Structures are given as structure tokens and as C-alpha cells.
């Protein structure tokens, strides 16, 4: 893709991403927050494609926008919270400090990015980010962490069942 075209794809996705992420932050109803988050995950998958991370972009849609968000929606429906339980926070001071701290952190991060200089992206070959290339890294260099991940997921499944079950 040419440079101009990439910029034209980047900006709409970036604006949509920040907008939907802000929607998660301000939504009063958790269902609206979850829907905003799904939109944010899709925008992020688009940006991953722009970074030539094809496999991770598809995993993002499959795992995040698919599995994790369905889990969230199931729990939201299961709890079926009434309006008074969704009520706004009583601690206004906490919110003010939170917003202030957030802006401070953002300033530090953006200035750090700015100081590190504006490096361009080097060209990559067609294999970069494909399933085959990522699998080669994953199964050669990171085989032990990969196997540990399977144990982690097993422990998480058993833990979730034990914690959520009424009587074990």
C-alpha cells in the first residue's frame, strides 16, 4: 500500500478507536459499554492489519470480539442489574483525581514517544506476520511458554468453574 493510502486508512480507524474506547469509559449501561468495546476491538484489528500483523488481527476478532465479549454479555444478562445498582459513583473527588492522573500519565507517555524520535517503518517481506512465520517463531523460540499457556488456560477453566459454582 502506498504511504498516502495508509494514512487515509489510519486516521478514520484511529478516531473511531478512540471514540469507541471513550464510549466504554462513559457508558452508563454495561451493555452499551460492551458494544462499544466490540467496536473498539474491530478498529484495533484493522490497525493490526495496517501493522502487517495478519494472524494477530484475526485472533483479535476471534478471541476478543468473539469469545471474551460473548462471555461479558452472558454475565451482564445473567446479573440483569436494575437501574439503582447501576447508579453513579458517590466519590466525585476520586473521579477528579482519576481524570487528573490519567491526563498526567498521557502527557508523560506522549512526551516519551515524542522524545524517542520519529522513526519510519522499514519495509518487510511478504512473509511478515503470516500464520506460517508466526508459527515458526512460536514453536521454535517460544515453545515452553506456549505449553505453559495451555496449563494456564486449564487452570483458569477449573478455577472459573469452582468459583462460580454454588456448591462444589
Amino acid at each position, binding site marked *: 500500500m502506498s504511504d498516502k493510502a495508509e494514512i487515509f486508512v489510519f486516521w478514520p480507524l484511529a478516531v473511531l478507536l478512540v471514540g469507541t474506547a471513550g464510549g466504554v469509559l462513559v457508558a452508563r449501561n454495561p451493555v452499551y459499554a460492551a458494544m462499544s*468495546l466490540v467496536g473498539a476491538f474491530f478498529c*484495533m484489528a484493522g490497525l493490526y492489519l495496517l*501493522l502487517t500483523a495478519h*494472524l*494477530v488481527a484475526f485472533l483479535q476478532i476471534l478471541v476478543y470480539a468473539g469469545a471474551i465479549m460473548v462471555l461479558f454479555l452472558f454475565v451482564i444478562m445473567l446479573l440483569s442489574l436494575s437501574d439503582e445498582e447501576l447508579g453513579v*459513583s458517590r466519590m466525585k473527588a476520586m473521579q477528579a483525581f482519576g481524570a487528573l492522573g490519567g491526563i498526567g500519565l498521557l502527557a508523560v*507517555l506522549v512526551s516519551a514517544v515524542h522524545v524517542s524520535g520519529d522513526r*519510519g517503518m522499514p519495509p518487510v517481506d511478504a512473509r511478515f506476520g503470516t500464520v506460517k512465520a508466526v508459527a515458526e*517463531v512460536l514453536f521454535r523460540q517460544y515453545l515452553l511458554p506456549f505449553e505453559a499457556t495451555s496449563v*494456564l488456560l486449564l487452570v483458569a477453566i477449573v478455577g472459573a468453574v469452582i468459583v462460580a459454582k454454588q456448591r462444589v
Partner: protein
Amino acid sequence: MVPASYYLSLAAVLFTIGLAGVVTRRNALIVFMCIELMLNAANFTFLAFARMKPDMSGHAIAFFVIAVAAAEAAVGLAIVIAVFRSRGTVNVDEVTAIKDS
């Protein structure tokens, strides 16, 4: 070509939105969603650096982050259900069972 600093700044904005949500929102479900947002921002940074090097290891780390986020969501939501069952609320300010006084 979109410069690397654009991606990194966007990830910083996302991380800050997630952090502000964790600090200011009191609904445990929305707090979890904001944590997912922060994990995603970290993932985004990994991928931006992977593209910058260029080195595929960042993609492998992003894969592990996605797996850990899935495990976290499963266990966390189970805890939310258990807390709601025993206390009838998901407001994190009202869950103070082991607080002194």
C-alpha cells in the same frame, strides 16, 4: 508510511482511557472491560515495535497476552458472579467484607 510514533501515541491514549475507567468507574463489569482495553493497548505497542524492528517475536508475545487476557476474563467474571451471589451487588465500593471497622 504511518510513522511509529503515531501508533505508540494512539496506544498511550488507549491505555490512559482504560486506566481512567479502572480508577473512576465503580461497576465491576466495566472495570474489567477497561482492563481489557489496557491489555489491548499493551498488545498494540508490542505489534508496533515488532513492525519497527522488524522482529516477529512481538507477535508471539501478543499471542500470549491474548491468552492471558482470556484466562483473566474467565476467572474475573466468575468472581463477579460469586460476589453478586453472596452480596447482591457489583459495585466495587460496596464489597468491603474484610475491611477494618
